[in-house]
């Protein structure tokens, strides 16, 4: 029989009806939408057990306590460690995304020499050659670590120079070195006991010192109170967040902090608001007023307010001696709620040796990328990430945070001595070496970081002072062996020394230091890594909370 066109039409009609009555269209409709819910190119979190570890953040000298959530052996979330006595469960905003830095696209994975590919052997050879030809300088961003003493001893052997570059918090303490004969690193601001804090441009609420430290104090004792227990007076040259949050805000001419300090000191002495402790400032009140751009009455009023609620302390944002001298006049040096000496002096000294006449300079990864040594020497730059254009000859990849064993000594400007250990939680990428490991390879005689850390634990144990803060705090005297102590610290415990004995600090200031304008410090921020965590875009690009940082997140 003949199949007509009509037959095909009818057959098609039947087939269509059949398809509609079959699962095909409906199942396809469903499965395609399920497909959109599980697009294969969209990454999903790994399945696996979740564990929580405690450690310390090594991105800046403050070493906040970290609570690390790990899944499938990788860190999947960071939070503050409540038991940490200084950071008290807080982190800086960047810290909360820091676990992703391990995977940052700018991560350095191979040695580079002047932009070209190179190898550890070549780098080592070049460094050894340099050592044999002349003195080497080593620059350290977080002094006082085990690695720091590796640097120091290496530099001393090679009659080179060890140089630690301090953040503004520590710098503000350097003027007292001369007057108290105590190294600045052993001094601290006893904010916890102060009643009035006068900050000369120090961004106390905006990235000053350990993030959790002052913000906790301020929140508990000042925030939103019209007559707060803790009075924050903020002297600034341009409107800042800290200023708008302060109890009082005083806006002065740029660079006139010293002048204002002198003016205040003069009022304090002339109006007999304080017992005569030190020399009279060189500036007259009217000069101070004229320079700082606020009236003499305002300065006098400010001086009176400062001493109205004591203890009072002035905090500079640099090493300006005038503000330090003001503290002397206020009697803040060596008194409760002022500048105090921490319980256990460390023997390490800060040499500010200049690096000009060095044959080679080794810069540790703890130094901010911006740092450029004023030298023509061959520069060996250790870093975990590539921060963009650099004048360093060698770029040497190091382990990142959570990948390397580091000890974290007392945070800058802290009033109490602390000691913590950041144990590696994940294996570093192959082909990375920390500066300390690099030097240890070159000088086998030198003690490795592990040994030094053990020795320090041993020292702490023999000191029989302080307590270890973990889930519960244990007096050192209750800890049997150095191994036990180290184990506790490696698991996120923090050793805390005895509270400072303020009176122990003697200070004599002969004549008022020469006036000089405040200058921005060598390292603007504590953040040492050359890149920011990817999630920082939430702060800088995806909101207008903070001003964008152009290069940092590249």
């Amino acid at each position, binding site marked *: 029989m003949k199949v007509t066109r009509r*037959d095909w039409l*009818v*057959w*098609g*009609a*039947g*087939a*269509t*009806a*059949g*398809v509609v*009555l*079959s*699962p*095909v269209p409906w*199942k*396809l409709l469903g*499965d*395609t939408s*399920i*497909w959109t*819910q*599980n697009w*294969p190119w969209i990454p*999903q*979190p790994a399945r696996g*057990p979740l564990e929580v570890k405690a450690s310390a953040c090594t991105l800046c000298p403050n070493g906040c306590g970290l609570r690390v959530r790990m899944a499938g052996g990788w860190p999947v979330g960071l939070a503050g460690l409540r038991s940490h006595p200084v950071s008290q469960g807080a982190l800086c905003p960047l810290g909360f995304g820091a676990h992703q830095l391990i995977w940052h696209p700018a991560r350095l994975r191979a040695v580079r020499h002047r932009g070209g590919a190179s190898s550890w052997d070549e780098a080592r050879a070049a460094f050894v050659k340099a050592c044999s030809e002349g003195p080497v300088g080593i620059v350290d961003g977080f002094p006082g670590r085990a690695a720091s003493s590796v640097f120091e001893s290496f530099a001393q052997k090679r009659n080179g120079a060890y140089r630690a570059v301090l953040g503004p918090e520590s710098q503000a303490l350097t003027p007292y070195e001369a007057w108290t004969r105590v190294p600045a690193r052993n001094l601290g601001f006893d904010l916890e006991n102060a009643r009035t804090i006068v900050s000369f441009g120090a961004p106390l609420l905006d990235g000053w010192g350990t993030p959790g430290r002052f913000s906790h104090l301020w929140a508990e004792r000042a925030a939103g109170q019209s007559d707060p227990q803790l009075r924050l007076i903020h002297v600034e040259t341009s409107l800042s967040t800290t200023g708008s949050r302060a109890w009082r805000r005083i806006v002065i001419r740029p660079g006139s902090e010293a002048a204002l300090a002198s003016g205040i000191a003069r009022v304090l002495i002339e109006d007999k608001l304080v017992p005569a402790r030190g020399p009279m400032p060189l500036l007259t009140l009217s000069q101070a007023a004229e320079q700082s751009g606020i009236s003499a009455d305002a300065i006098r009023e400010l001086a009176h307010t400062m001493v109205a609620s004591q203890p009072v302390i002035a905090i500079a944002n640099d090493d300006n001696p005038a503000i330090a001298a003001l503290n002397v006049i206020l009697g803040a040096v060596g008194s409760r709620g002022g500048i105090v000496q921490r319980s256990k002096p460390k023997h390490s000294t800060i040499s500010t040796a200049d690096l000009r006449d060095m044959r080679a300079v080794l810069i540790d990864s703890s130094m901010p990328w911006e740092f450029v040594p004023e030298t023509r020497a061959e520069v060996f730059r250790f870093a975990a990430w590539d921060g963009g254009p650099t004048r360093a000859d060698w770029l040497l990849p190091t382990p990142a945070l959570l990948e390397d064993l580091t000890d974290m000594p007392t945070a800058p400007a802290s009033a109490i001595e602390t000691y913590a250990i950041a144990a590696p939680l994940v294996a570093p990428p192959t082909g990375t070496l920390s500066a300390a490991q690099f030097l240890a390879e070159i000088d086998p005689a030198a003690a490795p970081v592990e040994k030094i850390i053990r020795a320090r634990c041993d020292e702490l144990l023999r000191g029989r002072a302080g307590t270890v803060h973990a889930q519960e705090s244990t007096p050192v005297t209750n800890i049997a062996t150095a191994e036990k102590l180290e184990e506790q610290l490696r698991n996120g415990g923090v050793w805390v020394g005895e509270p400072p004995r303020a009176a122990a600090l003697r200070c004599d200031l002969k004549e008022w230091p020469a006036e000089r304008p405040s200058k921005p410090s060598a390292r603007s921020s504590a953040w040492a890594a050359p890149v920011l965590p990817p999630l920082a875009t939430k702060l800088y690009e995806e909101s207008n909370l903070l001003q964008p940082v152009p290069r940092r997140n590249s």
Partner: protein
Amino acid sequence: MARNSLVFGFGLLVALLAGWVGFPRVLYSRQNQPLAFHHKTHAEKSGSAQCNDCHTLAEDGKFAGIPSTETCAGCHSEQVGTSKDEAVLVNSFLKAGKPVPWKVYARQPANVWFSHAIHIRRANLECKQCHFSYGETDEVRVYEQNRISGYSRDIWGHSISRIRFTRHDGMKMNDCEDCHRQRHIEVSCLGCHK
């Protein structure tokens, strides 16, 4: 007209056959498990009758799922018997320290949150309720995967029409909902999704 209806019916029949019989075979890909694992044998040999002897549910509520290779190594540190799979297990997984890439019949997608603890400890459900009596058989089921959605066939259930002949067929959201409805337990979207 008679011819018309005949032709129409023919078209209808072809389409129906293609849709109901042919389509499922095309839609699902059939994959074998990496090893011929027999639940029954293991239950007898190890003398452990309970599911949670191997599929443990910890005190903190974490469910272990498929036992790790360490558990296998407990008995299979060296080859037991001579089967080909035995060699594969010992050499290419246990000795190599690699996890066995089991294909999980009951695997739910990443956006589903399911807690065995809540269903077992709180609701006292039996494993069988959802996982059938597979644990008592000695068959090694072929793992069938939906080529479009990537789901295991067990999720939709084996009858393409979802008209169930056994109560235990399908682990779709509707199946969860049915059970919850019977027990008058109201759960929000994010009660089971994440």
